[in-house]
């Protein structure tokens, strides 16, 4: 069974360690916050200017002056801080953020990522993604393994305009957990009940499979 978006987020949450400052992108990455163990201390940074982002507000308590990078109303945790955009990106480019989790349209086996533009069709912009991927050491991509047409999003080379080069280290999809190393996707884990062949068929890029591949644990 391939994973739901919530389950992808749940699996990625296991990569979040005690003491981490974490930046979550829009989409599946936002859901990761819901699944982080409550016995560890983690602070979420949102690039529009908050460190220590909390859950959505209770009904009626929403504040238009308190949103996340997805423009959703949020709350601030005890110990949170607000800052301007330049300082926010000082945290990001200055490598003070420990883990970046973001979505992608395509990832290549050399770690290139594309997620901001489909020429002639969709141009939303890169937001903070180019700053994040250019500077972060620890980047995890959360995405579906294939697009709506069933084509692989894990490629030999990205076909869409790039967001960053040689930067993605790990990819978690609805089918698998993969590490990018030696110009290939190395299969680390598979979704419960998903076969190696299913993953092979859905991966256009070079796929390395060494020994037995365990199923993901949640």
């Amino acid at each position, binding site marked *: 069974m391939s994973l739901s978006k919530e389950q992808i987020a749940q699996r990625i949450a296991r990569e979040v360690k005690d003491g981490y400052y974490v930046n979550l992108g829009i989409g599946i990455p936002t859901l990761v916050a819901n699944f982080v163990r409550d016995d560890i201390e983690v602070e979420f940074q949102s*690039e529009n200017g908050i460190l220590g982002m909390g859950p959505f507000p209770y009904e009626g308590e929403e504040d238009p002056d308190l949103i996340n990078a997805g*423009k959703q109303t949020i709350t601030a945790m005890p110990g949170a801080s*607000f800052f301007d*955009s330049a300082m926010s*990106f000082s945290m990001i480019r200055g490598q003070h953020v420990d883990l970046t989790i973001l979505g992608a349209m395509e990832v290549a086996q050399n770690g290139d990522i594309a997620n901001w533009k489909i020429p002639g069709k969709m141009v939303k912009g890169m937001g*903070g993604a180019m*700053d994040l991927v250019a500077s972060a050491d620890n980047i995890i991509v959360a995405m579906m393994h294939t697009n709506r047409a069933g084509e692989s999003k894990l490629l030999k080379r990205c076909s869409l305009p790039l967001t*960053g080069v040689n930067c993605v280290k790990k990819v978690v999809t609805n089918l698998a957990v993969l590490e990018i190393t030696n110009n290939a996707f190395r299969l680390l884990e598979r979704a419960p009940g998903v076969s190696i062949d299913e993953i092979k068929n859905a991966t256009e890029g070079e796929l390395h499979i060494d020994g037995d591949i365990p199923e993901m644990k949640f």
Partner: protein
Amino acid sequence: MINKIVANVSEACQGVKDNMTLMLGGFGLSGIPENSIAELVRLNVKGVTCISNNAGVDDFGLGLLLQKRQIKKMISSYVGENAEFERQMLSGELEVELIPQGTLAQRCQAAQSGIPAFFTPAGYGTEVAEGKEFREFNGKMHIMEKAFKADFAFVKAWKGDAAGNLIFKGTARNFNPNMCGAATITVAEVEELVPVGMMDPNQVHIPGIFVQRIFKGEKYEKRIEQLTVRKKD
């Protein structure tokens, strides 16, 4: 104390002309200079270049200027919320320069600080880097980015005083402080204009030297773009 107060929004916007370059603070619809935008619509200035992280939504924020075809060029990092924007851009009516968000903030900051250019790794190897100067620092490639040049910066703060000192609230701060003093004239609109001496100097985010004109906004709609809430148990 040098008094920066102007009577109203129309006095604050005096001197804005066609084809100027304008900076506008805000992230999404949070912390946007609502009153100044309304005045720019009323003045019907044309052919302006806007430097702003986002382009508003169809019927609010910079979307209002887009509707009236007042904008010639947008310099932004993310424009996904505005269908009219996307239409004008894909049809070629609107010139658009999309740049990384951190680069956008730093180009404002550089203009504010008198730094003509800086190097950043953001966008290296992508179309953002095309035509720009590269340099390697510490084994990593960087792109040279230049400070913005703008005629007016329109920012929105929570509180301000006659000296032009500003305090921002929550994530409505965003690009507003970085744009202060980054243009020839900075216009600050505030929700509360407090008497001089009532603002604790320790709490001031932006000193008045970066602000030329300040006024109290007549009204604030403060529209929420994505209302997300949870239920009480």
